[in-house]
């Protein structure tokens, strides 16, 4: 399978990466080269093979169902969470207007 410019533009839009015509023109052959390389996986007989989900099988743990079981990943740290935001306002993340 190979991708054309319209497909790459669609993928870029899904991935929320703005790309102009020149960037798309550059990307199309590069992606096709990589897709051409991974195409060989189709030759592998995978009959009866389950897709791998974990390299080391282990049950998923649950943490104790208590508030702030681990203070580091718990709540009440609003200022620390907002500290690196490009636009923090009134204790919230600021974003451009989303309702016209």
């Amino acid at each position, binding site marked *: *399978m190979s*991708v054309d410019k319209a*497909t*790459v533009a669609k*993928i*870029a*839009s*899904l*991935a*929320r*990466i*703005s*790309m102009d015509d020149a960037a798309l023109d550059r*990307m199309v052959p*590069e*992606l096709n*080269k*990589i*897709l051409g*390389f*991974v*195409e*060989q*996986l*189709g030759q*592998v007989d*995978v009959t009866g*093979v*389950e*897709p*791998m*989900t*974990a*390299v*080391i099988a*282990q049950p*998923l*743990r649950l*943490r104790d169902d208590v508030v702030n079981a*681990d203070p*580091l*990943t718990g709540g009440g*740290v609003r200022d*620390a*969470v907002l*500290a*690196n*935001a*490009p*636009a923090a306002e009134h204790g919230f*993340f600021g*974003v*451009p*207007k*989303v309702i016209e």
Partner: protein
Amino acid sequence: MSELTQPELTHLGVQAIRDGVAAGTFTAREVAEACNAAVADASALNAFIVTTPDHALAAADKVDADRAAGRELGLMAGVPIGMKDLFATNGVQTTAASHILEGFTPRYESTVSQRLWDAGAGMLGKLNLDQFAMGSSNETSYFGDVVSPWRRNGSTAGLTPGGSSGGSSAAVAARLAPAATGTDTGGSIRQPAALTGICGIKPTYGRCSRWGVVAFASSLDQAGPMARSVADCALMLQAMAGFDPKDSTSLDLPVPDWSGALNADLKGKRVGIPREYRMDGTDAAILKAWDDGIAWLKDAGAEVVDISLPHTEYALPAYYIIAPAEASSNLARYDGVRYGLRDLPQGANLQDMYAATRAAGFGDEVKRRILIGTYVLSAGYYDAYYTQAMKVRALVARDFAEAWDKCDVILAPTAPNTAFALGEKLSDPLAMYLNDVFSVPASLAGLPAMSVPAGLDPAGLPLGLQLIGRPLDEQGVLNAALAIEQRAGFTAQPDRWW
């Protein structure tokens, strides 16, 4: 004051520093000052994105005070290290070598770095890397290429230190730091270690916590140490590893005393030589080093057996579906809202802002991988690409599982070539990917794997050999690497030009 000069102190390894500090031969502060000076003098290598001499000094002073007070010293007491800039460090910029995270200053500390500080280590600075750890040459960093301290005989051309942990490998090889952290998704500890003549081990997936490590491909990412000897790697890995409830894939197992149990006597051990790793296009010098390695392991008492890992050639294409797929998902978090860069064109709405921010903030290789990942996960292609790759991954893992019936550890080259020139493979992403051909299979199977120096090629560049072990058998990997280290007698180091 110690009898040792600053350059002599920077040539000491992890264990030698820790033992010297403990014995009072020199102080931790003297070591930190010597390393800080070496780092400051090596800006030509571009190994560090930021330096943190005060962090190193403060950690050293605490160790010296602890010693004076008769308190017990940690595994890494007095050892200043470099920290790959993929680990979140509290109060110190953490960028993953990207523009999108430029200026990001975490308010928390990654589990692995915290463990190292708790063990008495200090931080010389944050090390350069390929952007988001995507690359094999350290040329995708937003902060510029790292230049290897090594050069070809009679040449001044800049060479790659490997990648993605290229700042780590360059800093350790150039004697700026006795050790550094690395992370390995498809070979990012082992390949740079091989290209710069140092050691590096990626432990079993789950040994080191991923909490606070900028995510690339979560089912593959593992942290590990890079240092100049097998013993130093064992010691530092011991300080880094251990269960962490904050990482859902962390292994809830005790950390063995790998350092104390090191043993190069391989009597009764079987070493597997995978025939599929004899690939066209591998340097003759690397094949020669592989033969040397076989002879050394025999000399150490091991029995050498021929094994087959039939799906080896499919590991790399599977990896280049799985890793980008996971990356496209992981990197969705960079949206210009919560941290890092924001690009808000005039009149832009929220969606425009996402797209503009990500266009400005990600480098070309990162964009390529996000697009590939988005494509292989998209409706209509998911089964053909992603599910197929996950099935092939299961087959790659099964190959190894079957090989363990015949052998205890596997010996192979780490990379198909020695260090190449900066710029040489940049125009062809696929040629760059092929650098990971020998390292990716063990990553897909989550196995412990290590690179150890084996010698120099005719141009005077380091060659590395790779040891791959059973799940959780870091000890077997370290022991076989030690047997090679003792016989290879690798003492070469780069001539200082920087």
